[in-house]
Each structure stands twice: as structure tokens, then as C-alpha cells.
């Protein structure tokens, strides 16, 4: 059963990585706003048509 030490070590390292990410995310204000992110992800408004000097907008192929 000594392999349990390997599994505990590996799992704990990953858990610590996640904990670190969590602390970092909280500190950087990732979770301060728990309302607007859910709404903002819905808005993918397409950009306004480009000015005349720009090359054609959509590079399309039919494959």
C-alpha cells in the first residue's frame, strides 16, 4: 500500500495548485462580481463594417 503515498503526494500537489489558483483569483478580484459575467458572455456583437481602405472582411472558404 506504499503507493498511497505517491497518490496522496500527487493529489495534494494538484490540490495545492488549485488552492493557489483560487487564492490568486480571489485576490485579483475574479469573483468580486458574481452577476455581470453571466450576462456579458451572452454578448458577442459582431464588429461594425470596416472602413473602405481595409481589405475584405471575411476570409471565407467553402470547405
Amino acid at each position: 500500500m506504499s503507493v498511497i503515498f505517491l497518490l496522496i503526494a500527487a493529489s495534494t500537489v494538484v490540490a495545492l495548485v488549485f488552492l493557489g489558483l483560487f487564492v490568486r483569483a480571489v485576490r485579483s478580484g475574479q469573483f468580486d462580481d458574481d452577476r455581470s459575467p453571466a450576462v456579458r458572455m451572452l454578448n458577442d456583437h459582431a464588429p461594425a463594417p470596416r472602413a473602405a481602405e481595409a481589405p475584405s472582411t471575411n476570409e471565407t472558404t467553402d470547405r
Partner: protein
Amino acid sequence: MTERFQYDNRIVKNFLFVTILWGIVGMLVGLIIATQMVAQNTPPDAWYYWIVRPFTWLGELEWTKFGRLRPLHTNAVIFAFVGNAIFAGAYYSLQRLLKARMFSDALSAIHFWGWQLIIVLAAVTLPLGMTTGKEYAELEWPIDILITLIWVVFGVNMFGTIVKRRERHLYVAIWFYIATWVTVAMLHIVNSIELPISLTKSYSWYAGVQDALVQWWYGHNAVAFFLTTPFLGLMYYFLPKAANRPVYSYKLSIIHFWALIFLYIWAGPHHLIYSALPDWAQSLGTVFSIMLIAPSWGGMLNGLLTLRGAWDRVREDPVLKFMVVAITAYGMSTLEGPLLSTKFLNGIAHFTDWIIAHVHIGGIGWNGFLTFALVYWLVPRMYGTKLYSVKLANAHFWIGTLGIVFYAIPLYFAGFFQSLMWKQFTPDGFLVYKNFLDTLLQIKYAYWLRALGGLLYLIGAFIMVYNVVKTVKAGRLIANEDAEAPALEKNAPEEAGGYWHRWIERRPFQMLLLSLVLVAIGGIFEMVPTFLVKSNIPTIASVKPYTPLELHGRDIYVREGCYTCHSQMIRPFRSETERYGEYAKAGEFIYDHPFQWGSKRTGPDLLRQGGKYPHSWHYYHMYDPTSMSPGSLMPPYHHLYEHALDTTTTRAKIEAMRTMGVPYDEEPYGPGFAERANAHLSEQSAVIVAGLKKDGIEAQADKEIIALIAYLQRLGTDIKVKETAATR
């Protein structure tokens, strides 16, 4: 300042189309083996003989028997179908959530083609019998390395995109993708530590109980971090998009994400309840599994409640229909899973078709239906057109749902009733169903219905293919989709000079973590060999390493995938010790690289098979199972009688075992045994051939069947030796 850029739709399209392709292949292989399972050895006078003949004929070939196709089925649906769906959905949503094109088009392409190469290699090697013998991790070591490399490419591409993002906030879906990447990388590496013998053969570094624990720690978390977390990420992106309303509670999504990833990793031992794994480890698995109900249901409810007030749209939109059934199936299987990890229910359900039904609720319900929803939502959008036929999509939905019902419900019945039959005693205390096969033949009707369910589900998928082809023809791929977003404001001081080291200086916490990870990786590679070799010190004195012939026989057992139908794990129930013999002890498995406990009994347990029948029984049985067990559903193994045993690898095999601490230099073998191994092998084959001759069989000593018989006759006998010694 607003920046203009383009989303890469071509990579999403590529991943999405191979998802459909491999999905069909994987489901077709599933249908083949489901039919083989019930129809193998159908007599030519049965009315349905010619209907099932293509499938049973495949079951008679060397490469396409159940034991080799079942790993192909699981690998295809998990890593090819679901895997490519993850990549398609993640590549689409990551770009839009981060307001950036993928980090590198070249990496995207390498990721795509590399992953397809892995799949093709799997589809070639698994039917050829190249397997590690560990469920869901069957691919041999060169492919394991390739998987690692491609996974790193995916990681670099994803994290690169995150770094260059134009949106400071990371939407919850991205958290799920990150967790997926980190954890799968670790699981894959730890579980795949193996010692190569040749390009196509390796031995798991772990043995017996240890191997079982590592394997199911991996196996369960493959479910968690390959089939669950990435799909939750997809749900959190595509469900609000399809319903055009925000997720019910963003707060809940955050809480349930962190709870889920911290709890999931410890649930693995629930796959080994009542096995030879120490009891405390089993209980640990149960406790964490029960706790998992909370975050899992948090996710399910959050998904379903997103549709509150929009149920009228579900009636009309097939995308939402697929999603509702998918999320419901997720909720059902994440309640059932914890219940099945309690000792009481596990004692009934383990090794039966109940588990097969359970995983398919998750597989074809949750993963399959969410993938279909993605296809129907993404294809029209990326081709700038409308879905060709909503009616056909609805037809797919209903036929697929019916398929799930026909698949799962008969198997729930089958599992429950077969388990009760295994455990049923007469009033005098004898087993009612002494012959295992009798319990199997009782549930054949359920296997027919399951195959029908699978067929319906596959027909649904074909309807989708037609719909997609028509839609694609009506539109044109928007390969690069225009987008614009303001650039992310950067911290002014950070930008000024000495960029990279300032970055690290300002983040001591990350530095610490990074070094910890590096140290841990180093530590793992130093520790594993030493303490695992030490752990091979026998705890039961009579347990000895396999003879060279038995070792070859064991490798044939692994190659043929015998573990997909036969367990080697007698649980400590009276019904099992009466039927099979003494229950399994941890100390019996210390030389088993890999362990072969199995997870499903379509045939009887084989742990105490040794000495139960004469050599001749096995010789006849492996050639034609119905000759010894009338009605048997096991395929015939003619090729074992034709192929000569490859004895050129004997020395390498013995030496590899020595490296992993198997004491071949001790009694009864002695120092320098690897040199004499083939001589020992010939002697033992001669004894078996002589034994067969007594029963009137002229067998050739150099054929593979002799090695397999040697292994089967050895199984579980070391303990019997000890018992006779004790009574003396």
C-alpha cells in the same frame, strides 16, 4: 483602444467533424460487441443466424473478439468522440470568452493532427492485442508518450490564449478547462509508469493491490476530469448561449466548481469495494463519493434552472432538448454513483451489468447528448446558415432518447437479477445456480434489448450526419470570424522594463507553487522505483513468482483482454467463497504486473481456476467453449493453437520483473535464472503436453495455448499450497 481580430473557426470545425466521425466508429464498435455478447456461438439453425453472422464472424477472428474490441470501444468513445468534442467546444468558447484568437494556429493544427494520429494508432494497436491490460489506459507506452506531448501542446495553446486575452475576467467555463488540463496531465503520467520490454509491450511498474489503487485513482478521475469537468465547462458556455439567458446563479457555478475539483480526486477506491484493498481506503472512497452529490447536483440544478421561464423554448429548439436530457442524465448518474459506492449497493451491483447501465447513462446521456447539442448549435453558426432540418434533429432527439431507455433499463434489470441469482441459496444452504452460465443465459433477453437500444442510438447519429452534411452544403464556412474588443489595460509599472523577472518577483506565491510542482515531479520519479520494489517483499510465504511459461501465458491473458469478462477478485461473501473458493488476499497479487482483477463478470471469476479442471478441459474449452459449456457466449480462440509462443522475449521479461523486484534470484528459481528461463519453460510445456496426451490429445508444445493453460492452472493455487502445509 478597440482592437480588431478574427476567431479561428476552422480548427473548431475540424474537431467537430472528427467528433462525429469517431463517435460513429466508437458506437458501431459498441454495437458489434453488444451483439457478440449475446449472439456469439449462435447455432446455424437459429432464424436470426444470418442477421448476427457478421458480428459473430468477427468474434471468431483473432483481432476482433470481444476482449480486443471492448478496449477499442471504450477508448474510441472516451478519447476520440468525447475528447474531440471537448476540444471543439473549448476552442470555440475559449476564443470568444477571452476575446482573442487561439494563441497559435500552428499549435492548434499540431494538437488536431497529433490527437487524430493517437486515435488511429489506438485503432490499429488495440485489435492487434497491444495493450497494457489496464482499463481505459490500455494504450502502450509509445502512444502514452505521444499523448503526453500532444496534451502539453493543448496546454500551451490554451494558457497562451489566456495570457493574451482581452477580457480580464475568466468565465467559469475556463476554470473547468484549466482543471481538466492540469489533472488529466497528472493522472495520465502517474498511471502510465511502466517498464518497456519492446516497442509494443510493457509492464505496469505497480503490482497487485498497488496497481489496482493507482489504476482506479486514474480510472475514476478520467471520468471526473475527462467526461465531467470539461463538459460542465461546455454546459456553462453553450447552455446560456443556446437559451440566450444568463446562467441561473453565477455564484453557484463558482462554488460548485471549486468544491467539485477538491472532492473528486479521492473517490477512486469506490471501484474496489469488497476487494483486497485495505478497508480504510475503501471507506475513504465511499465518504468522498457521498460528499460529491452536493457539488454535482449544484451543477445540474444550475443548468436546469437556467431554463426557468424558458421551457416553452425547449419545446421548439432541439438544441435545448438535447441539453435538458444531457443535464438530467448527469444528475441521475451523479446521484447513482455515490449510492453505488456504499457497501450495501456495491455488494449487489459490482461486477454486473448495472454498472454498464450506469456508465452509459453518463456516456450516451450526458456526454453524447451534450455533444449532439453542440453540433446542432455550432454547425449552422459557423457556416452562416440555418440548420437544414429541425424536424430531423427532433427525430434524432427522440430516437436517441429511446435508445438510451432501451439501453439502460434492461441492463438495470439484468444486473440486479443476475446478482441475486449469484447470491441465492437453497433452504439447505447450497447455491441455487451452481453453474455461472445459467445466470448469464437468464438475462440474454436484456442483452438483446440493449443491442437494440444501441442500434437506435446509432441510427440517431446517422440522422445527424445527414442533417449536418445538408447544412454544410447550404452554407459556407466562415473560417475566420471578425471580432473586436478593447485591449486589456495593463498595469503601468509592470510594463516598464525588466518585464519577465519583475513578473516573477511580484508573485512569490506562484514561484513557491511552481517549485513545489517541480520538486514533487522529481520526488515521484525518485521515490516510486524504490518503495515499490521494496513492497514486493512477500507477505504470504507460499506465494511465488510465475514460471516463465506462466508469465507468457499471463501476457496472452492480458493480450486477449480476458479481464473484460472475467474477474480475478473473490469478494468475502459466502455466495462467492462457495462458488469460487477462498476469498482474495492482498498478498496473493504482489507479482501481478499489471493486476487483472477486472470490473465485470460476463463469465465466472478465475482467481481460483488453477487445478479446478484437467488440462484437457481447458484445451477443448478454449478451442470451442460450447463443447465444455453448452450455450457459452465466449468466443473460440483458434489462433492460440496456431501461433507458436514467442520465447525470444523470455529473458527480457524475466529481467524486467527482476528490475521491478520480483525475486527470480531466490528459491525456487535461483541466481542467473533469466539465462535458464527458456529451458525451464520447455520442461514445463513438456509436462503439460504429457498431461494432455494422457487424455488422448496430441498437442504441440510450442503453441501459445500451452502457456495459457499453464497460467490458468497456476491461478490462485499458491494459497492452496499454504493451506495443505498448514493442515499437515
